[in-house]
């Protein structure tokens, strides 16, 4: 780890920022987990709680932004310190977006109230959410531990999320064709899956930010892409 600043209060400022980002990360993880659980169990009350938690996530983002701006104004940070503060700002943005996407899933659960399609339809969404949660957890660990290898692994792992999204997309299309009564629910699920896939993209952004924070330069390689739904043929069975 870095040695301490001559001005100890600067260290306290930076630690406080990192702590708030970690707290925000924890809330975002909880939002995802709860939103998908609410979806699986059709639990409207839990979905409502997710929406309430999202208010705290937004609040934390504002606090991180204020703290970061104040620290820049007060300390005129250089080099790694400046990157750390910029990273906190970026992470707060990505985590806020993740929270919003989770909230959107929760809203759909509320909207679906009373609709009881077969449980098997939800499996795919649960799987992709497990994968994204793991990506998010790993990238937040990478941030906390300044672990480049871990950040890179998350960055490279996004193609798995994309590939799984493609497969969920196909699966849901199949259910819709099997039974048109599934269409409303499956369309909602498709949006949920897309939301979760987007969360994965934010986890990738965070991985890039961690890399920048530690190395001082951007990750410039071309990232592997696994989402092929934009070119996937629609299976047609007559």
């Amino acid at each position, binding site marked *: 780890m870095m040695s*301490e*600043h*001559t001005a100890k209060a600067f260290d306290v400022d930076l630690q406080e920022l990192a702590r708030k980002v970690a707290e925000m990360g924890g809330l975002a993880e909880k939002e995802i987990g709860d939103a998908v659980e609410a979806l699986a169990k059709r639990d409207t009350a839990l979905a409502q709680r997710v929406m309430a938690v999202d208010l705290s996530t937004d609040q934390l983002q504002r606090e991180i932004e204020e703290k970061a701006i104040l620290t820049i104004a007060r300390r005129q940070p250089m*080099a*790694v310190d400046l990157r750390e503060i910029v990273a906190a700002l970026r992470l707060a943005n990505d985590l806020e977006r993740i929270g919003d996407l989770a909230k959107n899933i929760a809203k759909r659960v509320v909207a679906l109230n009373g609709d009881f399609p077969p449980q098997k339809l939800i499996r795919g969404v649960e799987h992709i959410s497990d994968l994204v949660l793991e990506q998010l957890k790993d990238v937040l660990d990478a941030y906390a531990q300044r672990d480049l290898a871990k950040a890179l692994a998350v960055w490279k792992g996004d193609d798995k999320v994309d590939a799984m999204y493609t497969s969920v997309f196909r699966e849901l299309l199949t259910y819709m064709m099997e039974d048109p009564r599934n269409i409303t629910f499956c369309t909602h699920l498709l949006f949920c899956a897309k939301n979760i896939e987007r969360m994965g993209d934010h986890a990738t952004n965070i991985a890039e930010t961690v890399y920048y924070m530690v190395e*001082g330069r*951007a990750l410039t390689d071309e990232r592997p892409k696994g989402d092929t739904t934009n070119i996937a043929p629609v299976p047609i069975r007559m």
Partner: protein
Amino acid sequence: MNSMVQVEQTVASHVGLEDTPIKVVARGVNVFYGEKHALHDIDLDIPERAVTALIGPSGCGKSTFLRCINRMNDTIPIARVTGTIKIDRQDVHDPALDVVQLRARVGMVFQKPNPFPKSVFENVAYGPRIHGLAASKADLEEVVVTSLKRAGLWEEVKDRLSDQGTGLSGGQQQRLCIARAIAVSPEVILMDEPCSALDPIATAKIEELMDELRTNFTIIIVTHSMQQAARVSQRTAFFHLGYLVEEGPTTKMFTTPGDRRTQDYITGRFG
């Protein structure tokens, strides 16, 4: 993530040395003050028409190095300098070189404004006069006016040219010293913490001035303010304990320094 890519490109395109001629070349410069070895084997290239900042904690040797360039260390009896410093391929320690002429080519501005106890006009006219740079009174007046204008002081002193230079404000006195330095058309201007005795407004004016002057002069500044170095210079050299630790484009030095000691210093972890 485009913004990060752009930052990197900005840094890469700001290397500076390849496309700029070198004005001052230091090779193997050592300075001893009696027994004390103050500077160790300094190799440094200083680009022409740019601002080079020398930074580092107190006692790191940055001022000592600056003072080598116009042989100010000659005035200290126990000081001994080895190695070479060349300005346009001419060794400043060449015995055939007239040190008074050298100091006309290499002007200096000090930490505290030190105008002569003479009028504003005489402060600026003094150099050109003793170096015989003005053929007539009209010539001399023109040099004084031009220098005061270039130093951004003309508007403030044009009606009080016969007032005492020491009667000006601190920031004005410092700009008067800069006018005095540029009046003899030097090639290099050395500045030893020129803003440390000035308030923020006066500091901003000097920084603005440096940015204008660098189109005509090679400026080397010693500063304790990292922000100032980051703002005004194109290249930065970091000294520590008498060694040159690292030097490079300012944008790189203050964003992604290569050496741990540079990083610790610029981020306020020591010094």
